[in-house]
């Protein structure tokens, strides 16, 4: 089971792709769907690999995504 989770605020995303590119375990991909502003937000393709490192959150210029570890 994944050590962490990633949460996306779809409507705030501007589709830059930073989170997808720099996720060290390649958890994300850009969706083919649009948000209401016409951008392609990221979605989770390999959730079990998420470590909750929050690098996506560090990179996201739009404060639209973050990761965290599950409290155990």
């Amino acid at each position: 089971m994944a050590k962490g989770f990633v949460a996306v605020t779809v409507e705030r995303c501007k589709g830059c792709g930073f989170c997808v590119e720099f996720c060290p375990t390649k958890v994300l991909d850009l969706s083919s769907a649009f948000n209401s502003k016409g951008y392609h937000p990221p979605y989770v393709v390999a959730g079990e690999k998420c470590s909750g490192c929050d690098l996506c959150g560090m990179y996201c210029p739009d404060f639209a995504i973050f990761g965290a570890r599950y409290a155990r």
Partner: protein
Amino acid sequence: MSEFECVMEIPEDARNPVEPFLRMDRMPHIWCPGCGIGTTVNCFVRALLSSKSDLDHVAIVSGIGCTGRVAGYANLDSFHTTHGRAIPFATGLKLANPKLQVVVYSGDGDLFAIGGNHFIHAARRNMDLKVICVNNLTYAMTGGQTAPTTPGQVISATAPYGVFEPAFNLVQLAEAAGAAYVARWTTYHVTQLARSMGEVLNKKGFCFIEVLSPCPTLYQRRNKMGDGLDTMKYYKEASKIRHGAPTGECALTKSGEIVVGKFVDRDRPDYLELMRTQLHESLGERYAEPEAVCGL
């Protein structure tokens, strides 16, 4: 449907760690898709957390420009000054209330063209300010004109045949003028940048961090350099970490190597310390600390 769209199990109380530091009622911000300014803000928030800064004693001052918007979005005491005047405003703030941690957050045009004079003198005096310069190598908000930082050969709104005037090397300028701390990172180096920002929040004196950041709308697009993500990949490939490198060797070019790292970390007495020493010497008993007089 919940605010977060995701196949994963997301705890009820999960919250983006930057949100408490932002004025969320002002989101979404004005920055373009792929602009790096927001990324630097993430790093700054991590630095505030790791340095255990007392948020009631942190003030953030910006000038005009895309980066100048940071002061308006930060949920801290903040002031958005006139063009180029972030440093003089911050200097006044610091001298009137020496306990404040004053951060200047602005762009290359604002800090080094319109406000260039203020920058060199604040560094010379070793004013206790933390200056973060988001350098996108152009005047972004006004349409992408040649700035003092635009490298040679670059096409800009005012240089349709390529820039031919020499550019400032900001880290060399900061060191020569007297800064106590000088570092350069890019928006690709998020962890290193956050660490540097945390370091300067705990260091006395004039500290300067340059952050190279994409401006896909006005710089990269005009130069056929792709979008924000292409620029991030270029930063990743072209950057070399060389701590302590002589700043004179760290000039930026259009598409060459980018030397990053911490170049200067030295201790010099700061302005307030020098002032106190001098006034104590000259006035003796008659000198009273400004804090005692103003009741701060």
